[in-house]
Structures are given as C-alpha cells and as structure tokens.
C-alpha cells in the first residue's frame, strides 16, 4: 500500500489549471522525484499535499486516510515534513532554536501542553544531534537569517527532520546552491534514504533528480505526462519535448 497517494488531484487558479487530475503514489522507503519545467505545477502539488492550498478536486490520502482539507499544521502533525522552495528559516532565531522549535510538535497539539511544558535536556540533545547530522553544529548559535543560503537549506532540512517525519518533501533543495553545497546536500539525502526515510523530491534540475530518485513523475502544464525509472523517463519523447519547449520559451 502506498504511504501517500494523490487521486486525480486538481488545483485551479482563476481558470489556470496549475494541477489537472494528477495521480501519484509514494511508497515507503523510496525517493520519488517530481520533475517538470518551470510553472509545471510542482510547487502547487506540494502546497496541496501540505494543506497550504485546498484542492479544487481530487483527494490526498496518507496511508489510505484522506488528509486534504486539513490545516498545514494538522498535516505536519501526521508526519509530513517539508522544506520550502524559497528558504523560510526563522530568521530571528538561532539555528539551534530553529531545530528546537520543530521538536515541539507533540506539545503544539494542545494550548495547555504548549503553555505548561518547555524544552528539556532531551530535546536540547536531540537538536544538537540534528545540527551535527547536517553539519551545522559550528553555527548553532548564529541567527538563522545570517547564514548563507546553503546553510539555510541544511537548517531547513534539519528542522523538517526533527520530529521524525514519515515522509520528507523537498522543494528544489539545491536550487541556487554552489556545486559543492549541492553535492553535500545530495550526499545527505542519500544518507537519510539509506536510514529508511521516504522522500518526495521536487527538482527542476534533471541531473540531480536522475541521480537520486528510483522513480520519477513528470509534470507539465499541471498534468502528469510520464512516470517511471530515470532511464525510462529519459527516453520518453514527451518529456524531452516538454523540457525543450520550456527552453525555447526561456530563450525566446
């Protein structure tokens, strides 16, 4: 049974079909890559799954239970962790506090618990472990807003991992990074995957996605135009056309 499933998922913006009847399954333990030219609807798909946007039609199921219509915080409580395409660390908080904040997920379920409980030594230790894991320990006490983009990305990763999510969703995690930073990040995701994490990865860059994913879903103009292993997708003429069309638009 798939861990996460989208059934004919659609989201329209005033006539624009950003998502148009997309079917998708994510199986436990895999890295599923979602690729597609700019404006294909990848971020919209993420936002619908995470509850930031309501679907116009269709459903999202987590282990068979419908989750569309829930608030983003409720979906996060169910174990879906995410990063954002444009870095959204808590700028005024230190790196350590950013991770600590994410560790409060259990307490945030009720106002009373959040009010009466506070982070203890266990959470502080866990925050250090996570910072260590992404290589941010040396920067633990710097305000997150002052970190470089590459470090902010890793901080977002640590933050998303903090409450041990069942699925990690990454939106273009290496866009804007230097080659070295990107390599580090990719190695990190590989490592997490070997530890059993399920990952849903959006990446505009074909090279990166092909390298990381076992399976790919290709979106174009809100529709799923192909699905399969990297090799299958690479050979698919529809995919090549979609990307070429995009390049022509960019060049023209």
């Amino acid at each position, binding site marked *: 049974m798939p861990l996460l499933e989208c059934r004919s998922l659609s989201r329209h913006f005033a006539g624009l079909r950003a998502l148009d009847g997309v079917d998708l399954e994510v199986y436990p333990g895999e890295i599923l890559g979602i690729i597609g030219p700019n404006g294909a609807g990848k971020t919209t798909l993420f936002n619908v799954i995470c509850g930031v946007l309501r679907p116009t039609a269709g459903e999202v199921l987590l282990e068979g239970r419908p989750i569309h219509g829930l608030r983003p915080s409720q979906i996060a409580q169910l174990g879906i962790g995410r990063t*954002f395409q444009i870095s959204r660390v808590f*700028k005024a908080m230190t790196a350590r506090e950013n991770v600590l904040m994410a560790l409060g997920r259990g307490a945030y379920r009720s*106002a009373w618990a*959040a009010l*009466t409980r506070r982070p203890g030594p266990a959470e502080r230790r866990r925050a250090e472990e996570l910072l260590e894991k992404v290589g941010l320990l040396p920067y633990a006490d710097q305000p997150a807003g002052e970190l470089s983009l590459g470090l902010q990305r890793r901080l977002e990763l640590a*933050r998303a991992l903090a409450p041990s999510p069942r699925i990690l969703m990454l939106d273009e995690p290496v866009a804007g990074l230097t080659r070295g930073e990107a390599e580090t990040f990719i190695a990190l995701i590989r490592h997490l995957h070997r530890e059993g994490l399920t990952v849903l990865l959006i990446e505009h860059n074909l090279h990166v996605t092909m390298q990381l994913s076992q399976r790919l879903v290709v979106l174009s103009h809100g529709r799923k135009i192909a699905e399969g292993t990297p090799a299958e997708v690479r050979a698919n003429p529809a995919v090549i056309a979609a990307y070429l069309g995009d390049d022509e638009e960019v060049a023209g």
Partner: protein
Amino acid sequence: MYYYVVVGIALALYVTLTLSLNIITGYGGQPTLGHAAFLGVGAYTAAMLMTRAGVSWWLTFPAAFLTAALLGLVVGGASLRVREDFLAITTMGVGFVVVAVFQYTPWFGGVMGIGGLVPPPGVDKVALLLIATGLAAFTALVSWWLERSWAGIALRALRDDEAAAEAMGADTRRFKLLAFVIGTGLAGLAGPIYAVHLGFVSGPDFGFHFSITLLTMAVFGGLGTIRGAVAGAVILGLAPEVFRFISDYRNLVYGGLLILMMLIRPTGLLGVTSLRLPGLPGRKGGISRAAP
C-alpha cells in the same frame, strides 16, 4: 512620600500593561494599537461590579481578567482574518469602539463615567502600591514562563514566518489567540487597581493616546524582551515627572524621542534583534518592504 507612592503605582501599572502588550506584539508579532481599551474593560468591569452589584473589590480581579480576555479573544479572532497593517488598524478601531460604547451608553455612566470608587478598608495607597507591584511582578513571571515554554517558542516562530511555523505542526491560530487572551487578560487585571487608584473611570481615558503610549513604551524599551518592556515603561513613565520643568515641550520631546529611536535604534534600548532583520515575510511591491 505620598508623591512617590502615587508615581510608583502609575509605574507598576505601566509595567504591567507594557509587559502584557509585549506578549502580543513582542512575542507574537501581532500589532496592537488599542491595548488601553483592555485596561478600560477591566476597570469598567470592576467599577460596575462594585457600584451596581456591591461586589468586593478583591473579587473584581477575576471578573476583570475574564471580560478583558473575552474581548481579547474576539480581537484575536480578527488577527486570524487580517494581518499586519490591516490588523493594526483593526485593533485601533476596536479601541475607538470600546471607548465610544463606554462614553455613549448610559448604562456605563455615559460621558460622566463612573465615580466614587474606593478601595476596601485597610487598602491605603501604600497597600495599593504593593498590590500593583505584585501584579507587575506576576505579569513578568508569566512572561518569563511563556518565553521558555513551547508556546513561547511557537509564538516567536510564527512572528518570523507563519507558513513555516504551520509546517512545523504549530497551529498559528491557536497560538495567536493564546497570546491575545493572555496579553489582554493581564491588561484587564490592571483595571481594578487603576479604578480605585483614580477613584473613577471614564471612557476617553482608555483611548488611542494611552494605547500609543503603551506601544511606544514597549518599542522604546525593546520589543520581545521582559527587560525591554520594563525599561520602556519605567523610563517613559518617569519622563513626564523628570521633564516637568520643560512640561510645555513634553509632547515635542516625546515625539522627537520616538522618531530618533526609530532612526537610530529601532530594536529599542534592550530589544531582540528580530526587529532589525529585513526581509520579514512581506508583500511584493512598495519600496519599504523590499530589502534595500
């Protein structure tokens, strides 16, 4: 001696109010331009219960907390619908409407307000000073606890970025409401003290000018910290006394001080750095919201 006691009571009330405002605006990042109205609701609750129902002054405290927090819940509800500048204006509007209701409803004493409010026997000005100081200390303690709790961390996170806080599993609606209820409830608790200290309550006293004074105190001292709120309340609370010799220029000095503070040190004297960092989630367009 009496003079110092009276000034002391005023300062303790300012500290309480500024700290309570800091919970909403400093920790939670929600602008409030009508905070004095919640003091007013607390004070009127005490005044009404004492004069109309003969309730003991002591028992009006919980009632003042509840009525103020209830209105706070309503305004907090507005903060779920509107944001930033819209919310600032909404809170200002709520302040105006509350004052207008007090002033124009005969039941609340109308323009005359409610007078003849005296503390129970045995509570003289010195005792009142002790009680007011106790309330200020209690408010500081609540703030201190809140800052360190998971709720406080969630509030600071949502002040930075609401969408990211949601993605971490914190229901931003819940925590905003919590900040409003606690902050306004504490402001309401100052009401009974205020009422018997002055001996009367009158709608316009809780108007926009008082609200701005409180916001200014919090910002001047530094939003988001206890020490900042206390410092702002004490320094600006004492300023009218200290500047008495130039009392004709008081507003001039006050306004000038605000401008200079914003130009030179917008984080306040002792505030956190978050006010300094540009690029808080803003809208596209307009040159002030784009990082220079």
